[in-house]
């Protein structure tokens, strides 16, 4: 056990955890941020995706000891002053979910994609999102939601 200072959703948070505990486990079980989900623990499904310095990252594969200096954003950190991010709003508008378990990982992967590539082609969306599983099979709606979000975001300096 060691104490770590994490920067999560814009706030400094102190947490006691073994250095090799996964960031996912720390977020969910020690910081009560349950938006990131466990799906496989092996980086294969993307349900645990968070942003690490803006990059979509599988939090199940990252040890908490390695992220002390990084800025971590979970699904709980996207909404600003009660306003959904463009990607969140687009998922809602497209109804791009069924059970919703994959949704937080999908939204963060999409957020990361749109920060890198403001107007992705369909092929770029498919490639960027291929590591995120939706067992309910809502992929076509998720692609539509990402395209909608891209349309609604300012052309330059797109933020979350």
């Amino acid at each position: 056990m060691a104490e770590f200072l994490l920067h999560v959703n814009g706030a400094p948070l102190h947490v006691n955890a073994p250095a090799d505990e996964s960031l996912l486990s720390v977020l969910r079980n020690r910081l009560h941020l349950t938006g990131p989900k466990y799906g496989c623990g092996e980086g294969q499904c993307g349900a645990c995706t968070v942003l690490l310095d803006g990059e979509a990252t599988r939090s199940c594969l990252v040890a908490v000891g390695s992220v002390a200096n990084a800025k971590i954003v979970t699904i709980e950190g996207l909404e600003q002053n009660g306003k959904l991010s463009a990607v969140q709003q687009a998922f809602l508008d497209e109804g791009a979910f069924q059970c919703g378990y994959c949704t937080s990982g999908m939204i963060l992967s999409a957020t990361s994609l749109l920060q890198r590539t403001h107007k992705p082609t369909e092929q770029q969306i498919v490639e960027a999102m291929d590591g995120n599983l939706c067992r309910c099979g809502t992929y076509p709606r998720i692609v539509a939601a990402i395209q909608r979000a891209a349309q609604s975001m300012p052309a330059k300096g797109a933020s979350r």
Partner: protein
Amino acid sequence: MSLHDQSSPEFARGSYHEASRSVQLDRRDFLKVLGGGVLVCLTPTSAWTQESGRTFGGHELPKDVSAWLHIAAVGKVTVFTGKVEVGQNIRTSLAQQVAEELRVPFDSITMVMGDTDLTPWDMGTFGSRTTPTMGPQLRTMAAAARETLVQMAAQRWQVDAATLTAADGKVTDSKQSRSLTYGELTRGEKLVKIVSSEERLTPVTDWKIAGTAVPKVGGRDFVTGAHKFPSDMVLPEMRFGAVLRPDGFNATLASLDTSAAEKLHGVQVVRDGDFVGVVAPDAYTAQHALSAIQAKWNVPAQPSNEGLYEYLKNNPESSGEESPQHVAGSVTQAIASADLQLENQYTVAYIAHAPLEPRAAVATWADGRLTVWTGTQRPFGVRDELVQAFHLPAAQVRVIHPDMGSGYGGKHTGEAAIEAARLSKAAGKPVKVIWTRQEEFTWAYLRPAGLIEIKAGARRDGTLVAWEHHNYNSGPAAIGTPYDVANQIIQYHPARSPLRQGSYRGLAATANHFARESHMDALAHAAGLDPLAFRLKNISDTRLRAVLQAAAEKFGWGREKSTPGRGFGMACGTDKGGYIATCAEVGIDPASRKVRIRRIVEAWESGAIVNPDGLRNQVMGAIVQSIGGALFEQILFANGRILNPHFAQYRLPRFSDVPRIEVVLLERKDIPSAGAGETGIVGLAPAVANAIFAATGTRLRSMPMAPLHKEQHASSAQFHS
């Protein structure tokens, strides 16, 4: 940190004695909690209608109530049903139907679902039963509630109820230009009305809220992460549990050393016969403790994938003679005299449901009473499992279902609930258990594998004359042919499955459609007929004809001929009141024999549409899910072990596997709504198999058709003839 040896505890003896003081909110307390207002209960037996109008006090509600609805003094409507929301959108579609009949705004309705203390008993959420059964029941109840409110207004105003109208949460007397909100009418009342299913319902053609694309209830909570799934539940003082798994199925514990685990800070090892679990202060330590346990297991020799289908055929569940489900005419004679005869075998592999949220439960004991939050399609079934496991009266167990990360037929059982309850009981604290992905692949149950043998005969002109269909192990769902055939033998042969198997979205309808529709395609080719024309020649069911023609038209069937690189195929069928036709286009690289599904058109009809957006989402999702079982999903096993219990080895459909998909919804407002969560899954596999044949001349008769090799992880799958 002591080893709690519970090797002969209450589980074995059935003598659970603990000072138990019920803290259950019983039905009457529950009504008190609801406060004043009007409570309407629905029972299928009309005898209870005589009992209507009683007050709450001392009133015993009938045992066979299937749902109830409460209108509070502020006009807020709460509906209670034992069904559960798992992504199929019934929280929304059921509320729409209540709003419609009750004449209230949609957002005044709250659905309380799948809580064994608060909702009436329900068998479970499966078999596409919610829409055709619970839908009309809730509509009946809401219509009765509306009539009650109109009567109350008529009494208050001393006018004829027939002169009043109910709309937008109010009863209006237009002659006198006055109205009362439902809240004003129910204030101060404590009325119980028990109704049977005899109310007049609003015709579908008059629907204003039902039948529209109301967005999913609670949608915002799914995009903000606020929604609490079963695995997200947290209780004060909660500990984390994990369970030691055997090395293989049917294994027995040979030796056990838990000393290293017990030395870990805060860890408690719980043993009960061959059940070994740990309880720890945090999830990390629980897994750490589990891996510190040294256990040796005796695993008996068991069957493997090799020779599975012969095994299923040669190991019937019962030793006696089985009789066919359906016999008509004489298949033997008809085949002997048919111009065309065709006989073949088809197989489907075991596949996993792989819900993205694995089994999860949080259990807590208080005063001998057990409460468990868990993800399950059968909250009352899981309550019964807990009652049995702990020898408790049913009233001492409460199961609560937070809307879960889906199930697809795979979460009928309460394994995690029982494990969490066992560990919680031993620890004296609430305990959470979440299965790992490997546990979910290994210790849940699978869609049955199966062997299907079909023998068919047709005349030269394409008229089907004989059909014999035998299904070994996979199941009887949709085993009957929807085609007009005078001579038939249809038989399902249950087998002793070497792996644990159970329900799956669509059950065996996928396997039976795969075999039947592949065989129909082969017959069409043998007769030299177009597959569409051949099917239409043998279908008199107008609903099936309609979806087939709609799909063919949207797809542009017959506009282009298949080539070695590009094939077109179709399939159709019906199950659980849903009618489906699927057209597929596949692309094939002739050199590598890699296949890719390029386009799917699926026409769907299931009577009146309750929510077109939700319906479209279900059908689309079923199509996408079916890609996996059609092309690459299969459980590999040997000697009691699953060989590919990880997503890296068991590929699920991903973004890159998804073709262009067009869903054509046909509506029959004159036909009651059928459930739509399952049958959309049955058409893709045979349509793709038939498209591959059209392109290559190779008939693939085994699902999955293009199994991935371990090193493959590409978006296109290779098939081997």
